[in-house]
């Protein structure tokens, strides 16, 4: 087990570390900088969908509904913590009330 953890540590840490050692000094052309600036938003999109459909095991519609609710709230509420708690609460309620 110690060797597995050591191996997993190396392959997760090294890819995180290398850019911090080298990417900072690089003088990148403007289009690459624009590319990197858009990267977080593209990542957000791909992190949300389609993964959200399997966020609540066996309940894709409940998960999607909680996501839409979170999006609706985000139009009015700036506090991200509130939205996270709300989504979790809604899913817990529906799971425990046995609503299909």
């Amino acid at each position, binding site marked *: 087990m110690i060797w597995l953890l*050591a191996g*997993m540590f190396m392959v997760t840490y090294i890819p*995180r570390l290398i850019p911090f*050692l080298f990417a900072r000094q690089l003088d990148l052309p403007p289009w690459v900088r624009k590319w990197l600036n858009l990267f977080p938003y593209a990542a957000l999109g791909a992190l949300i969908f389609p993964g*959200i459909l399997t966020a*609540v095991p066996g309940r894709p519609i409940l998960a999607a509904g909680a996501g839409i609710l979170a999006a609706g709230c985000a139009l009015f509420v700036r506090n991200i913590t509130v939205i996270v708690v709300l989504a979790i609460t809604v899913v817990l309620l529906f799971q425990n009330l046995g609503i299909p």
Partner: protein
Amino acid sequence: MSNGLPIALGYLPVAITFGILGRQAGLSVAEVTGMSAWVYAGASQFLAVKMIASGVGYFQIVLATLILNFRHFLMSTVLARKIEVPGHRAAALSYWVTDETFVVASVHARPEGLSALGFFTMALTAYLAWLTGSFVGGMFADLIPVGIVDGMGIGLYALFIALLVPSARKHWQFALVASASALCAWGLLQLLPGLSEGWALIAATLSVSALGTLLPDVETRS
């Protein structure tokens, strides 16, 4: 700290689920918590316990971890250019780059950059929640019904959505790039059923943000 709170709340139930599944796969509480402390990569950890449970060799698990987690290389590349920090400290900070700390830090970063202290407090809060949850899940694996904590994983999706919505409203380019990237990731997984989710995310994110450079510049107010 305040930026780390929603991540911590999102991590807790996921980490508890991980602790429970880890115990069910035959790991001890120390091994479950140790994996969270030393690997600190949610999706890879879930995959690892699944592979341990089905008797897959360590080398294959490490290889699968590398593939699934390689996206952090790209995320670190973006963050390294935004966080102002000297080399030896950057080596420590980079350990805490996750999907969640990356998106929160980069969406909240001002054009002039992000303070190292701000990233540190946020990332530490998230990390401690991940450790605590793994320990609690491992400790009380027999008492907590996994079906309930499992569904609480929705919290992290709510976090991503809550981050995206205000930016997407402000700049249509961000809305377009995010939607196109989501569709692209979905399409790739449909077309290539064997593709790992890690690669689908990398391919969709890289290609769609590259295409996005053709869009008009985002006007940033300074």
